[in-house]
Structures are given as structure tokens and as C-alpha cells.
């Protein structure tokens, strides 16, 4: 799929970014969004199998660890700016955010160090997935990756 798009848009070479609105640019956006929704999917669609597996496992492991350590999974009705920032970071995991909410049946418990670490693990998973989505987007645009 990625090869087809790259062959059909000769104007987009690695040294020359594609123009806005071109087919390749739209493809890159789709890759970025897919990568955000399901960690690793953007790389898998471009046949970067090693990166896809590592991103999926890394984000998944951090989410599972964070949720089972009873870290805070922030929601949209946070009380202050830090809660909102935490929500944005947690949303970075895409569909795994729902998994984190499902895993954390007993709610957060940050009265012990494990819960605090869990909160950081969840936020890190989100930011890592956003970084991976950006990487997949840039690779789809033809930048060196």
C-alpha cells in the first residue's frame, strides 16, 4: 500500500516534502491517525514490522503495568491544568486508553509509590505512542526514518 502511493506521487522524494493536499500527504495523515488509534499500526501498514511490534508491545506493557499498579487514568472532567495535561497524555495511547480504564477496576491508588509509578507509566505510554505516530507520519511523507 505504501509502495503504491510512493510510486504514484513522483513529486514527493525524500529530499522534497510533498505539497499540502497531495495524495501522499493524505496517506501520511491516515498513517499518523492509524498509528495513534492502535499503537504500531502506522508502522505495520508501511511494512516496518520490527518497529510496529516494538511500539505495540512497549505501549501495551506500559499501559498494563500502569493500570495494574493502580496509577491514575485521567478523565475529561479533571479539576485543574495538570489533570487536563494528564488526560491529554493518557489519550495519546489511543484505543489503549479504553483498555487502561477497563483494567483499572478498583480505581487509582496513589497513596503508595506503585500507584504513582503507574500514573507515570500511563502518561509515558501516551507520549511514546504520539512520538511513534509522528515517526510513522514522517516516514509516510518520505522523510528518512
Amino acid at each position, binding site marked *: 500500500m505504501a509502495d503504491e502511493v510512493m510510486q504514484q506521487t513522483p513529486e514527493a522524494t525524500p529530499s522534497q516534502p510533498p505539497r499540502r493536499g497531495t495524495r501522499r500527504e493524505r496517506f501520511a495523515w491516515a498513517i499518523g491517525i492509524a498509528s495513534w488509534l492502535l499503537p504500531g499500526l502506522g508502522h505495520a501498514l508501511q511494512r516496518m514490522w520490527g518497529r510496529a511490534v516494538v511500539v505495540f508491545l512497549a505501549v501495551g506493557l506500559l499501559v498494563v503495568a500502569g493500570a*495494574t499498579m493502580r496509577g491514575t487514568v485521567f478523565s475529561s472532567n479533571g479539576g485543574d491544568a495538570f489533570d487536563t495535561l494528564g488526560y491529554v497524555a493518557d489519550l495519546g495511547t489511543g484505543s489503549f486508553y479504553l483498555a487502561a480504564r477497563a483494567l483499572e477496576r478498583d480505581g487509582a491508588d496513589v497513596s503508595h509509590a506503585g500507584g504513582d509509578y503507574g500514573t*507515570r507509566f500511563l502518561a509515558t505510554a501516551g507520549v511514546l505512542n504520539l512520538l511513534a505516530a509522528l515517526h510513522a507520519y514522517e516516514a509516510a511523507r518520505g522523510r528518512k526514518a
Partner: protein
Amino acid sequence: MIPANAFALTHFQAFLLFAAVISIAFGFLGRRRPKDRIKYILWSFFLFLVVGIGIAWAMYPFSR
């Protein structure tokens, strides 16, 4: 189903898990060739350990 206490980690175990996962992810995203990836992962993991333990020692006098 994952048991609730599946990840009952100490501070140091959580620190090692974090450093290992992030180093591997950065290595795969940042480098293309396997040899470069391994070098990057090991170097990144080493720096995580050195900086983390260094900060812990620097904070130790203020911990009590």
C-alpha cells in the same frame, strides 16, 4: 484476565522496567540497522541508570 497485583514492583524494579522499555522503543524508532539499534539501546539504558541513580544520590541528603 490480568491479576490486580501482577505488577507489584519496587522502586528499582519500576525504574529498570521504565528504562528498558523506553530504551528499546527509542532504539527501534531512532535507528535502522540492527547493530546501531543494539548500541543505541545499551547506551540509552546505561544513561538512564547513571542519571537516575545519580539524581537519587543527589537527593539523598534532603530525603529526611
